[in-house]
């Protein structure tokens, strides 16, 4: 079988596995929320609520049905894109996620781009000798950014740049004095459009000023992952036989690094990017809460505080689905890019 055929088969198998994982994740979340100790009704109404109110809420949530029926109901709803209704404001969970997801994606994508830029620059130290000062610095950078609690770094950044220096706003997503731009929900894009079409550049400036601290903090934390990945892979490539062979042919060190070692070291970094997305979400949860960034993670925290079970369930399922899709996409991309991979 040719490589193209094998590749196609691998991609097919990988894509077929994704729904299975999604189904497992959704079932897991469903089961956890049902089997966990404690009654959601108690949590919502308190233990001393009248029996009629409890029964009514139980029926509204569908908790009076047998477990298997609830599960079937949940799965059918999921297939139709129906995630249930929020308990606190009676909005469909899907709408709530639709309103908050663009903010999270905007923050995540900007942070990821910044992190890649900073992390790859630091990771370039992989061409330095092992145990040298450059190597030590890069290793400490990697461990340090890993060990920093995201919310604490965010608070310190707030303290210095917002409270003491007053350069940037403490939190939020848009200046409260301006009308938020309408359109896609991605404020950067929307306000860029406002700027280009109507000359209202203060919108873009406002969104950028609000985005800078949260995205910057998240980027610092994630950059360590990129730096470590590039540093280790670059080191391995520089130590390999083919680079040695190229060096003995008299190639310049500069050409050796840029043309021979770097391309091979960059591919594994792509894998790391896929893995980073999962930690990005964990970090984003805390960053959003710290900066009151109105994204899906901050909404999840609110839903948890309000014991809004359907909303918690919906957000977790959607976020898990996003992680699975990114993981699969990176796997497929990597298989397509790297001719050395065998399936």
């Amino acid at each position, binding site marked *: 079988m040719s490589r193209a055929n094998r590749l196609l088969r691998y991609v097919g198998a990988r894509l077929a596995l994704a729904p*299975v*994982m999604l189904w*497992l*994740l959704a079932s*897991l*979340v469903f089961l*956890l*929320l049902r089997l*966990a*100790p*404690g009654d959601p009704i108690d949590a919502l109404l308190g233990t001393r609520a009248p029996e009629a109110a409890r029964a009514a809420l139980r029926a509204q949530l569908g908790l009076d049905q047998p477990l298997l029926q609830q599960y079937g109901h949940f799965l059918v709803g999921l297939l139709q894109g129906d995630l249930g209704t929020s308990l606190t404001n009676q909005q469909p969970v899907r709408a709530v996620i639709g309103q908050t997801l663009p903010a999270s994606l905007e923050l995540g994508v900007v942070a990821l781009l910044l992190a890649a830029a900073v992390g790859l620059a630091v990771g370039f130290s992989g*061409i*330095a*000798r*092992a*145990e040298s000062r*450059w190597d*030590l610095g890069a*290793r400490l950078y990697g*461990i*340090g950014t*890993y*060990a*920093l*609690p*995201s*919310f*604490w770094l965010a*608070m*310190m950044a*707030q*303290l210095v740049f*917002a*409270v*003491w220096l007053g350069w940037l706003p*403490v939190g939020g997503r848009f200046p409260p004095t301006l009308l938020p731009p309408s359109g896609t929900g991605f404020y950067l894009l929307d306000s860029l459009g406002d700027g280009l079409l109507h000359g209202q550049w203060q919108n873009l400036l406002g969104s950028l000023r609000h985005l800078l601290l949260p995205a910057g903090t998240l980027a610092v934390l994630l950059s360590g992952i990129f730096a470590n990945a590039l540093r280790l892979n670059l080191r391995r490539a*520089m*130590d390999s036989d083919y680079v040695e062979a190229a060096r003995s042919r008299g190639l310049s*060190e500069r050409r050796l690094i840029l043309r021979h070692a770097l391309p091979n070291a960059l591919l594994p970094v792509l894998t790391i990017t896929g893995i980073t997305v*999962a*930690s990005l*979400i*964990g*970090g984003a*949860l*805390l960053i959003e*809460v*710290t900066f009151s960034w109105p994204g899906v993670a901050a909404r*999840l*925290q609110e839903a*948890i*505080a309000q014991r809004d079970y359907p909303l*918690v369930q919906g957000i*977790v399922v959607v*976020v*898990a689905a996003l*992680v*699975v899709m990114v*993981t699969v996409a990176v796997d497929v991309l990597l298989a397509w890019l790297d001719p050395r991979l065998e399936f």
Partner: protein
Amino acid sequence: MVVDAPRPTKPATNLSARLARWGLVIVAAYAAVALVMPLLVHLGLLSDPTAGVDNPVNAAPSWGHWCGTDRLGRDVCSRTLAGSGVALQVVVLAVLIALLIGVPLGMVSGYLGGGLDRLLVLLMDTLYTLPVLLLSVVLAFLLGRGLPNAAAALCVVYIPQYFRVVRNQSVQIKAELYIEAARSLGAGPLWILRRYLLRNVITSVPVLLTLNAADAVLVLGGLGFLGLGLPETVPEWGGDLQLALTALPTGIWWTALYPGLALFVLVLGLAFLGEGLERWLSDG
């Protein structure tokens, strides 16, 4: 940067040993604080981390309170120090439970193979895909606040990690000749698991244990920051930072700086220790 000196084929262990030593010192210092802290409070040398009625509220650092007081008048220094014992207790408990479940499960699954193995692998891989913090947030939300609850919410996150490492190693070792020899001599599966697999597999555990502990300290802090995990009465860094966040815009920095710093340095110590151990074990 021109690099022309010959490259050593194996990274020298010099730096790794130094890192591990630093990590050990840091972790030992935290453990010592955790042990001595209740005694000092009892003797009256340190103020009680949970009592603050007599103290000024939100006072800046001074001779009386070296790190200031929080909005309930509690001493930030003693709260920060007391957090060490709480964090170590939860994290050690969580990681040990994960170890005790994950390692045997991985060994049995890898050794027996078959349908059970495939099912467990799929389940663990699925759990592994979920972001660590998201999973523990959901679990902590369901289990409620409390020390054993927080430990349980954390341990579920780490079971798949032990399972994966141990299971893959078991599959490899299972095919070795000496296992077959033992089997042909009449050794039962329990004997083989205990006598041969466990001893081989156990070497990869210390590194994973230390790195997981580092991660667990961070996650516990995150849970506390989100108002989950430990009860409000327990002095815990994440919970204290949540309180500090509301006071931050008014310029009250001391309630935020010290608990976070304590959290950061403990994770740093554990990460140093783990990284050093890893290099040391893989070289030796």
